[in-house]
């Protein structure tokens, strides 16, 4: 018996990581997603991640599926199963194989027997099998990918019905296509059964009940739906990775979701602008004129929106900006993930500005913040920036079904003709920038309001309560101070942090956004290693009191984030400098999504150092 041959009862069940090593532009994503979905359909939690180059065809790309009975969704650092169809990268890929990992590879690739012969490796004659299937020339690539699906299905004991369901799901109506692909899978599985020794595979799946009622989708799709359920009426955008699919998904579902029940015509327009300067200008025009308006972009686009977002802040125009973050500065790594725009976004534009920021941590929150962002923006009359990221936005996640918005839309303080008439009858007048209610939020009217007494002229220059041009020093100051107070009110409107308490822990773990997944896992691992922690995920700026209270309660807190400068930590420092000494920066900045291992290592290092 070879050293690596596992006993059947020693197999690791529902807890491993498969990585598909492909070339981009070869249609592998159908196959990869199909494996992932089939496992999901078996009731087992899965998380898939696509690691792709900034390029269209011919460069290496990887798709990693983590199968986790415990429901952990973070990335793993090592691969248990490598599916190697890209000869370019095999050697490097092998470096990432875990201790008892295995390799399934295209028989056309020369396997490095000398160095890696001891590893269980399964050659699959993809080309031959495809030929035997009499595949249409145009489909060779696609069917070839199905071959490794079939082989994996056999090796890991994936339920073939689940594979079939996954294919039917993928091909939607097109049963022929699903059938064709399924046949290839079955054929390959049969070949594998006849030719490969499954007992050498130390991993397998077994049905569970942990995904029932769950959906699988990506954060950008969730954002698109949330936006449309939020009643978005106008969107202008400019394509950019990784944000494009927010809008492209909107484009796809618009006819279905937003044709007017009465007339069948659209109640939302999506305009592709000539650039981001224009996209943000359009939504600010629309937001000013009473539409729920949004755009989606990424770092470079956000930089271009700086000037206009200052205007929206100062003229008090509600708009929603999704920034699906990628690695900056500059063009950086356009297809890698980061959380590096926080500091820039928080104070974007010259002059004193403070922007409201939401940070979704899951696809469900992408949906929820999709509609909530409008409520907040319109209530506060200010831009709301939603900071998602590539990992969350472009990868497939299992999730709870989306919840229908629990509250009616809050359109904020908008006055129409009758309200203005009433005001006038009461001997009052409409003053655009006057704090009538003592909450520092003024009333507004929008173009199309035909009551002349409700009309005003907006501008980015100094203005008085009646929106008239003013250079008067006191007028300027009091208006700007009102804006500062208004921003403070936002604390009460934005979603508060989410906690997961440990066992009387004295250490806090603070994070935001998609990094919550590895951090939550790390919290468990640390607990097992005897390091108890409390977890707090921040979901918005400005911070509310709970955020500070959490820091206060703990001896020290690790602020875990995907940027070099500890941007979240900096914002927390500014909020509570007296507690800054408790904050420890954990910055992960290489563009790969975070792993529980990385966090655990760092924290154990520090904690052990302290204990010494």
């Amino acid at each position, binding site marked *: 018996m070879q050293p690596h041959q596992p006993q059947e009862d020693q197999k690791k069940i529902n807890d491993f990581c498969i990585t598909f090593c492909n070339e981009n532009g070869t249609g592998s994503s159908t196959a990869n997603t199909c494996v992932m979905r089939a496992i999901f359909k078996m009731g087992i939690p899965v998380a898939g991640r696509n690691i792709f180059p900034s390029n269209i065809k011919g460069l290496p790309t990887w798709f990693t599926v983590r199968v986790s009975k415990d429901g952990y969704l973070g990335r793993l650092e090592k691969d248990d199963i490598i599916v190697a169809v890209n000869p370019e990268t095999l050697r490097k890929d092998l470096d990432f194989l875990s201790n008892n990992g295995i390799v399934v590879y295209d028989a056309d690739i020369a396997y490095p027997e000398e160095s890696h012969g001891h590893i269980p490796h399964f050659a699959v004659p993809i080309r031959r099998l495809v030929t035997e299937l009499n595949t249409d020339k145009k489909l060779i690539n696609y069917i070839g990918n199905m071959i490794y699906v079939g082989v994996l299905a056999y090796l890991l004991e994936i339920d073939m019905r689940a594979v079939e369901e996954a294919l039917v799901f993928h091909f939607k109506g097109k049963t022929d296509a699903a059938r064709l692909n399924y046949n290839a899978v079955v054929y390959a599985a049969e070949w594998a059964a006849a030719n490969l020794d499954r007992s050498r595979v130390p991993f397998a799946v077994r049905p569970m009940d942990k995904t029932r009622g769950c959906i699988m989708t990506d954060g950008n799709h969730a954002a698109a739906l949330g936006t449309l359920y939020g009643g978005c009426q106008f969107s202008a955008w400019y394509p950019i990775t990784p944000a494009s699919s927010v809008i492209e998904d909107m484009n796809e579902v618009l006819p279905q979701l937003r044709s007017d029940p009465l007339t069948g015509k659209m109640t939302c*327009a999506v305009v592709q*602008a000539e650039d981001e300067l224009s996209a943000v*200008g359009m939504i600010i025009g*629309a937001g000013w004129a*009473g539409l729920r308006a949004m755009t989606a972009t990424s770092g470079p686009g956000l930089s271009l929106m700086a000037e206009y977002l200052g205007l929206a802040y100062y003229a008090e125009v509600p708009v929603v900006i999704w920034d699906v973050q990628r690695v900056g500065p500059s063009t950086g790594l356009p297809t890698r993930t980061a959380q590096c725009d926080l500091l820039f976004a928080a104070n974007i534009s010259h002059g004193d500005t403070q922007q409201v920021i939401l940070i979704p941590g899951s696809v469900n929150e992408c949906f929820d913040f999709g509609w909530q962002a409008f409520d907040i923006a319109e209530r506060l009359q200010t831009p709301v920036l939603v900071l998602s990221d590539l990992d969350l936005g472009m990868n497939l996640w299992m999730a709870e*079904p*989306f919840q*229908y918005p629990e509250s009616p839309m809050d359109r904020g303080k908008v006055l129409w003709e009758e309200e203005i008439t009433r005001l006038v009858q009461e001997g009052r007048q409409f003053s655009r920038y006057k704090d009538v209610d003592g909450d520092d939020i003024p009333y507004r009217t929008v173009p199309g309001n035909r009551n002349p007494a409700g009309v005003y002229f907006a501008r980015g220059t100094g203005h008085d309560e009646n929106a008239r041009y003013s250079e008067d020093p006191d007028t300027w100051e009091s208006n700007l101070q009102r804006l500062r107070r208004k921003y403070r009110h936002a604390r009460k409107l934005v979603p508060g942090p989410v906690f997961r308490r440990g066992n009387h822990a004295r250490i806090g773990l603070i994070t935001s956004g998609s990094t919550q997944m590895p951090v939550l896992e790390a919290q468990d691992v640390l607990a097992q290693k005897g390091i108890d922690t409390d977890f707090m995920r921040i979901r918005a700026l400005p911070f509310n009191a709970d955020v500070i209270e959490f820091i206060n309660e703990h001896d020290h807190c690790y602020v875990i984030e995907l940027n070099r400068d500890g941007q979240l930590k900096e914002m927390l420092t500014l909020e509570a400098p007296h507690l800054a000494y408790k904050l420890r920066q954990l910055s992960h900045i290489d563009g790969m999504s975070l792993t529980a291992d990385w966090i655990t290592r760092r924290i154990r290092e520090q904690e052990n150092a302290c204990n010494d």
Partner: protein
Amino acid sequence: MTDEKKTTNAIGLTRQEYQGSPSTLCKGCGHNAIVNQLIQACYELDLRPEDIVKFSGIGCSSKAPTYLLRNSFGFNGLHGRMPSLALGALFADRTLLGLGMSGDGDTASIGMSQFKHICRRNPPMLYIVANNGVYGLTKGQFSATTEPGVRFKRQGTSRYQPVDICLEALASNASFVARSFAGDPKQMRSLFKAAFRHKGIAVIDIISPCVSFFNFAQSLHSYEYGMQHEIPLHELEFVPNENTPLVLKDFEKGTVREVQLHDKSSIRLKKLDKDYDPTNRWEAFKMLQEAEEKRLMVTGLIYLDPDPPLIFDRYNLVEEPLNRLPEERLRPSRESLEALNRSMM
């Protein structure tokens, strides 16, 4: 003037009700003349101020919208970025008419991109460029429409061929392109009226002298030059629809040509020197090219596509104002979300 106060137009408004706050521009600034004729045109067309929304960028010219139509909404946006602001806002209520006011710097220097792209989109909007060939508000720098060879002490010599706003609008498929001169009130007024009735974007480049920084006799943007060199393509008269027989592009009737607008009002062009057909894009290019070579200030209606598709036609939107749709029509049903959820399982 005192008479006028008492007179009202067909919708019962006085001319005064079309005014705005007092101008803070220099006395004699061409932009003031534009404002006056805009007021007059709106008054005579019986437009409701509430049906108009004003937009501008930054510059002396961009301040002008506050000096008219005090009962219209307006937004004085960013330098060079008025078009995007206007476009987004106009989506909110399709019954509104946009009135954009910009300068040569605002449109042809920093604003080139948004200007070109809004021309392609054809929103319902009169887009005026008050073109003085100079930056007024920042005190006399060259703009992209300054002719080469001008010397300013603190700027040196202007160096490049000027941007021709009308040529640019044409190249970008604007559906109504005209040029006028702030010293020619009658022509401006007629053009404004036609433009307000046009279905889509009407770009009007108006040579509008800056008396503080660039009103030199020899400059192409001065009153004196305009007075001496303006060459109208035709005599223009706007004919409101109620009085007009439906003569679609009835070209060669003696010396009068009529171009009908989409709402059946029309523009009557009286032939002057030679005949010019403003529905021929190609002829427009030629005329502009010649005018540039000979340094002529040729004014009038340069190009008109009388019935182009409006931007909204391209988005299949509901007819009523988007910004008045109630929640029921904006938020999809609970069932639809359930169905979506199922489809992602």
